């Protein structure tokens, strides 16, 4: 396998983009990445998108987006794994370069959610439509079921759940690309209206428009062109049952644990090696359990771990320095790529006020549905 590096990255601001279409958002992010990479040539393109069909009524977006980006005749693949579509697109681009099949691959993610009048139902399509959504289980409801089970078993508290949002908003306030650039207090999170008990509005990631893109090339090419070189050293993917109720343990996210283990193994790293991590905090409880599954804290202890500040910038393992999906925003198909861009910025020392000191090894964890799919990448500063 060839070593794979990142040579360029770009993203739109994450927010409600009333004046931009799906294709506008994609092209803006992709052009930024191409300009950053200083290479106009693209051999092939992947785009992660959960549901252009339900959100904007458009399918076949691979060629559509290549066409609007001016990439005539390139091979293009649209990748779907619900909210993990972005990271899975990156994984496929990584494989294409590692295999030697292509040299310059654009990997991207996009979602235009605000054109849709029932995004709750569109998102529910990432669950088991016939056995969960059909009965009225929304995504917040499914994660609330997980949260209740975690509280029952481990004594996790409402305050510990809310602390995830407080921390992520604190980081988001320092991110000019974030949808919500303001801090919130624990009381504000707890007193925001209840969406699905125990999850309040400020513990649920928002409806967001946005796109993100990265250019991947063989590592040698990055070394010739960039001062600060970042390579992808680990890539892990795993799946699990589509319905939450089919899992033996509702408080675990097995796909996350396995994707993490596979990425650690490929990179030859362990949890203690990671300096900074972006995780899939679609709901507050998700971040808590993911931090456990990735091995940063023992099972059941994540509530106290985050309450004690271990995941803040400057803490033992800074998590979601970008603001996470909660504050940065969650254009579902774009989130997995945006997470990797945040880690890339941290590793090249370009994360401004959010910079983690001496960050040399980073991780990004993306997740689909209630954890029926998960993708984990490890990135490192190359010598």
């Amino acid at each position, binding site marked *: 396998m060839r070593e794979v590096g990142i040579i360029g990255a770009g993203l739109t601001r994450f927010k409600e983009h009333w004046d931009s279409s799906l294709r506008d958002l994609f092209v803006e992010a992709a052009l930024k990445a191409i300009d950053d990479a200083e290479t106009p040539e693209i051999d092939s393109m992947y785009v992660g998108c959960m549901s252009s069909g339900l959100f904007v009524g458009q399918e076949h977006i691979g060629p559509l987006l290549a066409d609007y980006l001016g990439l005539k005749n390139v091979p293009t693949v649209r990748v779907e794994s619900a909210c993990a579509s972005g990271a899975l697109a990156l994984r496929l681009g990584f494989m294409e370069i590692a295999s030697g099949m292509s040299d310059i691959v654009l990997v991207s993610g996009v979602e235009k959610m605000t054109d849709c009048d029932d995004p709750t139902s569109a998102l529910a399509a990432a669950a088991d439509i016939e056995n969960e959504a059909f*009965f009225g289980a929304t995504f917040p409801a499914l994660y609330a079921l997980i949260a209740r089970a975690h509280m029952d078993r481990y004594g996790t508290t409402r305050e510990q759940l809310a602390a995830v949002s407080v921390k992520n908003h604190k980081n988001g306030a320092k991110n000019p690309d974030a949808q919500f650039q303001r801090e919130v207090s624990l009381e504000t999170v707890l007193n925001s209206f209840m969406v699905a008990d125990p999850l309040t509005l400020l513990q649920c990631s928002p409806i967001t428009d946005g796109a993100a893109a990265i250019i991947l090339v063989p590592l040698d090419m990055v070394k010739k062109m960039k001062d600060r070189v970042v390579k992808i050293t680990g890539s892990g993917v795993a799946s699990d049952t589509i319905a939450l109720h089919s899992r033996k343990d509702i408080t675990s996210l097995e796909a996350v644990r396995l994707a993490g283990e596979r990425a650690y193994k490929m990179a030859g790293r362990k949890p203690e090696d990671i300096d900074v991590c972006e995780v899939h905090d679609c709901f507050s409880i998700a971040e808590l359990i993911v931090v456990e599954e990735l091995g940063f804290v023992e099972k059941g202890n994540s509530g106290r771990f985050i309450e004690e500040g271990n995941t803040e910038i400057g803490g033992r393992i800074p998590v979601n320095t970008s603001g996470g999906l909660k504050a940065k925003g969650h254009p579902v198909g774009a989130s997995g790529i945006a997470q990797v861009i945040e880690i890339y910025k941290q590793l090249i020392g370009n994360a401004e006020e959010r910079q983690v000191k001496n960050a040399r090894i980073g991780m990004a964890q993306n997740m689909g549905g209630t954890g029926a799919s998960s993708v984990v990448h490890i990135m490192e500063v190359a010598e």
Partner: protein
Amino acid sequence: MSTQKIWRERIGRYRLIGQKCKGCGKVLFPKRLICPECGGRDFDEEQMPDVGKIVTYTTVYVGPKFLELDTPYIIAVIEFNNGVRVTTQVVDVDPKEVSTGKEVKLVYRKLQAEGKTGVIAYGYKAQLV
């Protein structure tokens, strides 16, 4: 939900009929073609019990469009004594009375009002025993 789909899934949803794996004895609901436990492909039909226990639950305040008028409503994971779990609503109850471990009985109810095709879908919901 289309008419065709409602019709196809009627046996499971209306009568709670699942299956038992002839290879390992695992009970599955709804029916599948392959046992996820042992890979077996031979099954006997199996009637699900109509009583179970609440494994976890939530009160939903923001629902999808088809349930907009029903909020707040309760969603729970219910476990039967044969190990099968389902997700459905707990109805006819004050949310304060619902808690983990409580016994419920499944009842036949309207699930979704008229969809695009105008057909009403029925199925199971749960009541506290």
